[in-house]
C-alpha cells in the first residue's frame, strides 16, 4: 500500500526515468556514503541498460567485494556477489554455462587491478563477451582508504601517510594492451557521456571495459584535502580529464597527466571467446 502511494506521488511529479523498475526497493537505502560517486554510476548504468533494451532476466550482474561491489545487491537482475578479486572469474563461468546471458561486472579498482588483476588481464586477452565497469576511486573504500593500484603517485592513503611511492596503473591502457576489444573511460561527473559510453559497451560483443573515475570523499577526499565531494568532482573528474574530441587537438604535453575520456578502442572484428569456442567445436567435428 505504502509502495503504491509512493509510485503515485512520483507519477505526479513526473519523474523522467523510472529507476525503480530495475531496483530491489526493499534493499534501499544503499550503504554508500553521502557524496560517493558509486550511486551516480549505478544510475547511468540503469539508463544504459534501459536504452539497450535488455530484458532484466537476461542479465547476470557479478561483483567482488568492496563498496562498488555492493551494486548487484540493489538491482533486480540475476546477481552474483562473489569474492574480492574473483568477480571476473565467476562471471567467466556464468558466461560459459549460459552464453546467451548478458554479463555485467561491477567492481572497484582494487578488485579489478590489484587482487583480481590476473583475472582481468586474462579475460581481456580472451575477449570474452562481458561488460566490466570499474568504479575507479583510487582507493580501497570499503576497508577504510588504503592505497590501491590506481592511487596516484604521491597521494595520501591510510597505508601511505607520507604519499604513495608506487606508480599507478592506467586501467584502460592495461585493458587495451591485454586485448579487450572495447575500452572506454568516463566519470561520474559526466553523467550523460557515461550513459552513452556504457550503452556502447553493453552493445559491443566481446570484452568491454569501462573505467569510471568517481570519488570516495570519505577516504580519498579527506586524506587528500579535498573540501567536499563536489570539489573532488570538479578537480579530479572535470579538470583532471579531457574528452576524446578535445584530446585530438592537443599535444601530449598539453594533455599532461589528464585522463582522456570517451571510447578509446573499439575493435568490432575481434573474435569473441564463446564464438571462438563454437568455431573450434565445429572445426573438430567436421574433421571427424
Amino acid at each position: 500500500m505504502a509502495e503504491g502511494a509512493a509510485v503515485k506521488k512520483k507519477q505526479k511529479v513526473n519523474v523522467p526515468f523510472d529507476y525503480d523498475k530495475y531496483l530491489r526497493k526493499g534493499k534501499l537505502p544503499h550503504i554508500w556514503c553521502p557524496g560517493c560517486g558509486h550511486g551516480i554510476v549505478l544510475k547511468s548504468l540503469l539508463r544504459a541498460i534501459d536504452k539497450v533494451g535488455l530484458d532484466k532476466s537476461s542479465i547476470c550482474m557479478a561483483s567482488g567485494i568492496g563498496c562498488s561491489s555492493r551494486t548487484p545487491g540493489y538491482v533486480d537482475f540475476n546477481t552474483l556477489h562473489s569474492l574480492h578479486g574473483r568477480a571476473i572469474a565467476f562471471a567467466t563461468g556464468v558466461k560459459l554455462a549460459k552464453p546467451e546471458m548478458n554479463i555485467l561486472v561491477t567492481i572497484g579498482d582494487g578488485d579489478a587491478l590489484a587482487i583480481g588483476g590476473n583475472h582481468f588481464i586474462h579475460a581481456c586477452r580472451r575477449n570474452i563477451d562481458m561488460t566490466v565497469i570499474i568504479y575507479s576511486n583510487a582507493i580501497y573504500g570499503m576497508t577504510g582508504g588504503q592505497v590501491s593500484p590506481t592511487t596516484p603517485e604521491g597521494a595520501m592513503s591510510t597505508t601511505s601517510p607520507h604519499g604513495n611511492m608506487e606508480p599507478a596503473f592506467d586501467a584502460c591502457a592495461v585493458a587495451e594492451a591485454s586485448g579487450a576489444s572495447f575500452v572506454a573511460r568516463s566519470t561520474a561527473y559526466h553523467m550523460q557521456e557515461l550513459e552513452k559510453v556504457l550503452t556502447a559497451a553493453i552493445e559491443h560483443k566481446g570484452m568491454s571495459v569501462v573505467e569510471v573515475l568517481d570519488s570516495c570523499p570519505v577516504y580519498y577526499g579527506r586524506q587528500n584535502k579535498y573540501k567536499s565531494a563536489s570539489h573532488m568532482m570538479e578537480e579530479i573528474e572535470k579538470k583532471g580529464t579531457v574528452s576524446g574530441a578535445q584530446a585530438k587537438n592537443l599535444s601530449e604535453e598539453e594533455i599532461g597527466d589528464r585522463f582522456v575520456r570517451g571510447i578509446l578502442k573499439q575493435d568490432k572484428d575481434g573474435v569473441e571467446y564463446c564464438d571462438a569456442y563454437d568455431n573450434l567445436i565445429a572445426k573438430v567435428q567436421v574433421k571427424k
Partner: protein
Amino acid sequence: MSAALKQKKVGLTGNSAVAYAMMQIDPDVVPAYPITPSTTIIEEFSSYHADGKVTGELITVESEHSAMSASVGAAAAGARVMTATSAQGLALMWEVLYIASGMRLPIIMPIVNRALSAPINIHCDHSDSMGARDSGWIQLYAETVQEAYDNTIMAVRIAEESDVLLPIMSCQDGFITSHAIECLELIEDKDVKDFVGEYVPKDTLLDVDNPVTMGAMALPEFYMEFKRDQSNAMTRAKDAVSKISAEFAETFGREYGLFESYKLDDADVAIVVLSSAAGTTKVAIDKLRAEGKKVGLLRPRLYRPWPHAEIAEALKNVKVVCVLDRADSMNDFGGPLFGDVRSALFDLDTAPKVFGRIFGLGGRDYKVVDAEGVIGELYKVLETGKIEQLNRYITI
C-alpha cells in the same frame, strides 16, 4: 618470581594493542593487505612506520596471496617477518601457508578471527583459522586484549626457538576483542626488545659462504623425512610454549600456560571453549557456583600443537564435558575442537562423557544465558547418564 618490570596501564582495542606490540618488536619486513577486522593492525603499524618509530620495511602488496608469498621470500632471506589477516585473506594465503611451514620459516601472523564466506559476513567465528589448523602453523588463541598483546610478543620467541622454527598464528576474536577497548599493561619498548632478542636465522638465502636451496623437490625417497622432522618440531613447540610462557611470567608477571583452567579442580561438569567466549562462560560459572553447582572451564590457549595429554590430565576427574566450537567441521561430527578434545580423553580409564555444541557463527551473540543453558544440559547428562544429542547448534 623476580619483581616484574615496570609497565604502564592503558586502554586499547585488541588491534591497537597488537599493532603496538608489532611496533615494539619492529620486524624487518611486513608485507600486508587489508581485510576487516584485522585492517587496523596494519593501518596503525603503517602510522608507526611513517612516524619513524620502526626501522623495518612495510610493503602494501596486491593480495594476501602476495602478502604471504612476500613473507616467505623475506623470511627465507633471513628477515624477521610479520603480517596480519582475517577470513578470506587467510583463505587466500592457504597455498603459501604450507610453504612457510614446510620451509620452516618462523613467520609471525596475528589473526583476527572472522567467518568465511558464503554467505558474506565480517563478524567473528573461528572458521578461518580452524581451516588452517593442519597447515603446520602453531596456533595460539587469546581471550582478552592483554593476552592478544602478550601472545604477539611471546609468539616471536616460540616461532624462532631453535628446535622449533615454525610459523605461528596468534588469534583473537574479530570485533569482540579486536575492536573493544580494554585496560591492559604495556611493557616498555626496551623490555620487549630484550625479551624477543635479535633474530639470528639458521639458514638463509643470500649467505654466499653457505649457499642453500629452499623449497627444493623431495620425491618419495625424501618427502616423508621432511614431514617427520616438521612434525617433530611441532611436538617440541609445545615445550617451547611452556618454557617461554614461564620466562614471560618471570619477567613480566603474567602467567599463561598451554591452557587456562577455571574452577576445574573439583568440577563435576566442564565447558571447553576458545577465546573471548570463555569470559562470558566464566560469568555463568560464577553464578552457578554460587548456587552450589560444581562447574568449571578449560580454555585452550595453544591449539596447534594440541596439548592432548595435559588436557586429558586436567579433565580426567570431570564427569561430563561440553565442547563449544565457534566453527563447524561440516562432517556430521561436530566442530574441530570437539573432535580434538574427545579424542584426547579417549584413553582415560574413566573418560568423561563429551558432547559438542556449535555456537556464535558469523558473530551471533553468545550470552551468559547461553552458557547457563549449556550448564543445564551438562547437569542433565550428569543426572541421567545419557547424552541425547551428541552435537547440535545453539544460539540459534
